[in-house]
């Protein structure tokens, strides 16, 4: 106990005590303990997660030396992985798919959230409850579902071939053989992630403003463009950067389509599990981490701005 009290107090007074209280020796001990008590979770996560992550970065930079005991192990360096044209295509695919999906989610999410918030209908609350539940479902569920609808032997194909008299075997053929199936699945799964911050932002808008604008003769389109959109802009950017990050990191949706169109997470899994090319997987992982960390930092900043300087964002 004495050794603890002798430590220099690393933090200002702990929050549990009112500031008017005089600093007694017992308080001092408690203060030091408060600091100590906060370390175990960090140490635990550090050992279980941060250290492994550091090893990934280390192996990506160092590459893998030839291993005499394991002749099947592929040897690569960071630059080898980056220079490979196949890898470059996958990086391009990843960014492209993330951007397309995010744009789709933002447009659809904005329209749907707008209707829920400003053209209320009976059951609107149930719908937003449904969205909350939807957010906790796994993403691959969407791929499994739309296969039955739009897949090669799916419902829509059967109807379409019945309508065309069976001349075309598979009139609709995009789920398994083109990126559009992944795009559709990501649109469905990630749109609710955009809607939630938007609904929060819309609920904070003073409806009086909308009525004033309307009474001055502004049509709905103009009210949306000049009143609602500027107010909701931080939420749009926050939702957008979150979805951009999530789509870039998405594994389930892409792998369930059969992975003919590969993105970084799928290729990482393939490198590590099928090719035992750990150095290559680590190199790709570093690229993926850098991309998504940048987006996540942006998301956090925008979210803070959304709750803090809502007005400032409007007048910027």
């Amino acid at each position, binding site marked *: 106990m004495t050794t603890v009290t002798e430590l220099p107090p690393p933090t200002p007074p702990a929050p549990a005590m009112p500031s008017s209280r005089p600093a007694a020796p017992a308080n001092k001990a408690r203060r030091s303990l408060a600091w100590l008590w906060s370390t175990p979770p960090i140490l635990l996560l550090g050992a279980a997660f941060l250290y492994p992550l550091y090893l990934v970065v280390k192996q990506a930079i160092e590459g893998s030396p030839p291993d005499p005991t394991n002749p099947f192990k592929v040897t690569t360096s960071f630059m080898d992985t980056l220079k490979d044209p196949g890898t470059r295509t996958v990086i391009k695919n990843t960014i492209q798919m993330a951007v397309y999906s995010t744009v789709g989610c933002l447009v659809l999410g904005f329209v749907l959230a707008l209707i829920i918030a*400003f053209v209320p209908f009976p059951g609107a609350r149930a719908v937003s409850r449904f969205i909350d539940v939807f957010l906790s479902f796994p993403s691959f569920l969407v791929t499994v579902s739309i296969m*039955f609808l739009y897949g090669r032997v799916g419902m829509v194909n059967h109807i379409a071939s019945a309508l065309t008299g069976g001349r075309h075997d598979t009139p609709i053929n995009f789920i398994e053989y083109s990126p559009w199936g992944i795009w559709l699945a990501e649109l469905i799964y990630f749109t609710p992630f955009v809607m939630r911050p938007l609904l929060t932002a819309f609920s904070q808008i003073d409806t009086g403003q909308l009525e004033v604008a309307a009474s001055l003769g502004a049509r709905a389109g103009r009210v949306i463009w000049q009143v609602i959109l500027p107010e909701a802009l931080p939420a749009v950017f926050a939702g957008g950067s979150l979805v951009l990050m999530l789509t870039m990191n998405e594994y389930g949706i892409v792998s369930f389509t059969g992975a003919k169109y590969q993105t970084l997470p799928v290729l990482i899994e393939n490198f590590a599990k099928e090719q035992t090319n750990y150095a290559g997987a680590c190199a790709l992982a570093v690229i993926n981490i850098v991309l998504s960390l940048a987006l996540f930092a942006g998301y956090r900043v925008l979210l803070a701005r959304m709750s803090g300087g809502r007005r400032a964002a409007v007048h910027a």
Partner: protein
Amino acid sequence: MLLYTRRAQRIAWAVFAFFFLLLFALPFGVLVLAAFTKQWNGAFPSSYTFSNVTAAFHTDPLDGLETSLITALLSSLIALVLGTWAALALDAVRNRVGKTLIQTVFMLPIAVPSVVVGLALLVAFSQGPVLLNGTNTIVVMAHSILVTAYAFQQVSAAVTRLDPAYEQAAASLGARPYYTLLRVKLPLLLPALTGSLALCFALSMGELGATAMVYSANWTTLPLRIYALDDRGHQFVAAAVTAVMMTITLAVLLVVSRIRTRANYR
């Protein structure tokens, strides 16, 4: 209110209904339909059966269900303890550096792709003093790391909303910090704790990316079984297992939301 004519409102609702039904309701409906399908050669299933669902409860996938339930339960409990602890620590630490450190470390698993979380564990624990590759521990570990971030996020949001007057009153009456924590703070946080436990459970049940990296043949979770079924062409059984998994997740969320409302009234 944005639209003032009845016609314009109807058009807006029609747009909403169209997209909602086409993109959200229809896929779910078809999934449930497929779960009971025996043969599907036309626009609609030609014959129905209950055997997919019973197959979902038989030997092979059932092991997956058990594995998934155990993994989800363990990892969400670990995440709840760690996340709550870190959230309370974030509140207690007053200097900026410490706050930023805790926030960064505990939000990082959300930003890092789940596949990379799995890869990191694989790289770290396939060599060196601690060998976990191929054990069930590494699967639980991966899930715990991923869901801890969400528990932390939820609980720390609730901690900042907490009225400091309660714990100040307790402290002024002479309650020691641990007593204040146990008898004042944690009971006030109960709704957030159960809520984040349910979220963590749901997320862990559906986790695929990290699990695909670290799983072993004797500890294969439900999403991986569904992937294998789908891959081998047993689409209807895959749909049935998915539906069973969804139902269980929903039931857990529902039960926990009941607890939550009761705690709110206390």
